[in-house]
């Protein structure tokens, strides 16, 4: 073994006055950081293995633990930061591509934090959501252009298939395989109870979850894992995944070691074989090709289910979205560069794609300018962190948002960003039975329902304050938004005025 050049990032601090040697931390850390020395009757730890997931901190009954930055530093350098140096050392050591998980943590602007909401004063009344009716329901899908009438002049119902939701939030695609069975069950049960939808991701649908079909979006990705006609017909909508915000332009890879048992069966691939999702769909090289897949899927499902096309927010997102809106798809989902992933190359995650706020504003505007906004609904994702983000996204033009990271956080995720190691201490991004059982779906689904109910209340409060009583009237209502600390170009792209204007 050579020299280890990298000093641990975190330090596990144990307050000896409070520690009672219960060994809960030792039993709960799958990274084997804590150890009880019986000869000394004391707990010790190896900080180097700690990923800062806070499992031990949360479970320690005496609050004896905390995790702090180790504080070790190279000679300070604004160009060569500690992180940059460590990554270079790591690569010199391994020769490998750096892997990460979850969304981009780098210091790029968060536009949601530079947008402020309006409220009514004096001349226009605000609405109290507890006393007056307030509609949080939304319906996603294409809107018919014309009113059609039969020979007797009666209106023909020409409404294309829709998804109807109790609030403008859905759980985004996370495959069974990348997250555990119990995490999936929590999402499915919560979606059902809330009257919203969750998304299978590209791993197919476990047979136990067909009963939640009315609250399921079934995904078709480039690997086409687990896709068959019963699967396509089991959901409320079908999503074609073209891209993902955490890794635009590249595919996915679930290692063969994770393709075991039910996961292999659900994905319809042999045990132990790598599940490789190619970067492109090999049958899609143009909008015309996409149109073929959209219509194949519609045909298989008797034109009864809306088709979503999901793309990553990249530089040409407006032109791509314009094409998708003409492809026969009913809904476009756009995933911003902060979107999460169970495994992604660090360089891609941190350097590719654009912020969802800018992508959303420009796509909405372009589709309006081209007169095709009603062809599709727009869903946005890629770090929606609170009800305020939801309200701002809707006001920028979204019909609905996807949450992935936020939902996982309700289940226990502490953003340690080590999903790719497969040893999630919270039982989410792992398939090890000793770890997956840490997530009891009875508790998990309740926490998701709580989170969404809390957001729904807050959304109504914010809308009420603006004197708006339905999501429909908030949608694309950019006059309710003002920028703070943004330059002319940013304001122009967001289509909003500056605070004070």
């Amino acid at each position, binding site marked *: 073994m050579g020299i280890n050049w990298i000093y641990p990032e975190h330090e596990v601090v144990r307050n000896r*006055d*409070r*520690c*009672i040697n*219960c*060994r*809960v931390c030792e*039993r*709960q850390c799958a990274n084997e950081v804590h150890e009880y020395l019986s000869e000394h009757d004391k707990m010790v730890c190896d900080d180097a293995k700690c990923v800062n997931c806070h499992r031990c901190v*949360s*479970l320690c*009954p*005496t*609050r*004896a633990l905390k995790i702090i930055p180790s504080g070790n530093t190279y000679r300070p350098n604004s160009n060569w930061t500690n992180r940059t140096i460590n990554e270079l050392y790591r690569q010199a050591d391994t020769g490998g591509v750096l892997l990460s998980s979850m969304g981009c943590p780098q210091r790029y602007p968060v536009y949601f934090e530079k947008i402020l909401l309006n409220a009514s004063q004096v001349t226009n009344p605000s609405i109290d959501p507890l006393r007056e009716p307030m509609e949080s329901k939304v319906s996603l899908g294409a809107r018919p252009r014309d009113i059609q009438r039969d020979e007797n002049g009666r209106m023909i119902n020409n409404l294309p298939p829709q998804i109807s939701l109790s609030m403008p939030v859905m759980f985004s695609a996370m495959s069974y395989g990348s997250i555990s069975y119990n995490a999936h069950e929590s999402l499915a049960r919560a979606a059902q109870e809330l009257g919203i939808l969750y998304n299978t991701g590209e791993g197919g649908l476990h047979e136990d979850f067909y009963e939640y079909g009315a609250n399921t979006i079934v995904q078709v990705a480039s690997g086409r894992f687990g896709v068959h006609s019963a699967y396509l017909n089991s959901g409320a909508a079908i999503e074609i995944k073209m891209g993902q915000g955490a890794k635009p332009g590249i595919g996915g890879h679930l290692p063969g070691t994770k393709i075991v048992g039910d996961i292999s069966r659900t994905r319809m691939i042999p045990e132990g074989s790598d599940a490789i999702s190619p970067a492109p769909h090999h049958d899609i090289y143009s909008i015309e090709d996409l149109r073929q897949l959209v219509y194949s899927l519609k045909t298989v499902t008797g034109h009864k289910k809306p088709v979503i096309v999901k793309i990553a927010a990249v530089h040409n997102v407006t032109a791509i979205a314009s094409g998708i809106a003409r492809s026969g798809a009913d809904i476009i989902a756009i995933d911003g560069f902060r979107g999460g992933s169970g495994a992604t190359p660090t360089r891609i995650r941190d350097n590719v794609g654009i912020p969802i706020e800018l992508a959303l504003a420009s796509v909405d505007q372009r589709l309006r300018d081209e007169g095709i906004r009603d062809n599709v609904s727009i869903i946005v994702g890629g770090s929606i962190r609170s009800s305020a983000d939801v309200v701002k996204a809707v006001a920028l033009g979204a019909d609905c948002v996807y949450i992935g990271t936020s939902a996982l956080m309700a289940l226990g995720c502490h953003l340690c960003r080590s999903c790719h190691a497969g040893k999630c201490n919270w039982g989410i991004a792992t398939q090890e*039975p*000793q770890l997956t*059982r*840490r997530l*009891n779906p*009875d*508790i998990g689904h309740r926490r998701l329902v709580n989170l969404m109910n809390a957001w729904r209340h807050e959304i109504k409060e914010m809308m009420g304050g603006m004197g708006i009583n339905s999501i429909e009237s908030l949608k694309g209502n950019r006059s309710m938004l003002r920028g703070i600390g943004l330059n002319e170009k940013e304001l122009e792209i967001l289509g909003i005025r500056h605070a004070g204007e």
Partner: protein
Amino acid sequence: MKKIYVNEQWCLGCRLCEYYCAFAGTGERDMARALAGMKIHPRMRIEEKDGISFAVSCRHCKDALCVKSCITGALTVTDGMVAIDQDRCVGCCTCVLVCPFGAVASTAHGVMQKCELCVQSSAGTPACVRGCPNGAIVFEERGAAR
């Protein structure tokens, strides 16, 4: 009557329940102060083998063998709960021998102790149930006592 039941499927073997149980008996406000440096004697135990674990505590049997066998009458059934009067216990361990669940054990000071559903010490829900992070022990009504 509400009793403690285990959902072993969700038990993590973390043993927090044992510590919350031991703490519940101390009357202290702070667990660190109550238990630091001590060997604990909880009234319930985690049994663990081959990756399966679950909490074992008194079943409060309808026809409790321990109550029948106690030579001093220290064990009684009160409102469906098997209770122990430690002042009457002489530490003969007969109850320990007859309990089919291993739910009675001796304390540091010789007399026996067992789970009494935290009736003395807490507000409604036993300490182990409140302390379990994963819903692996529950306190609920499940029909007729056996």
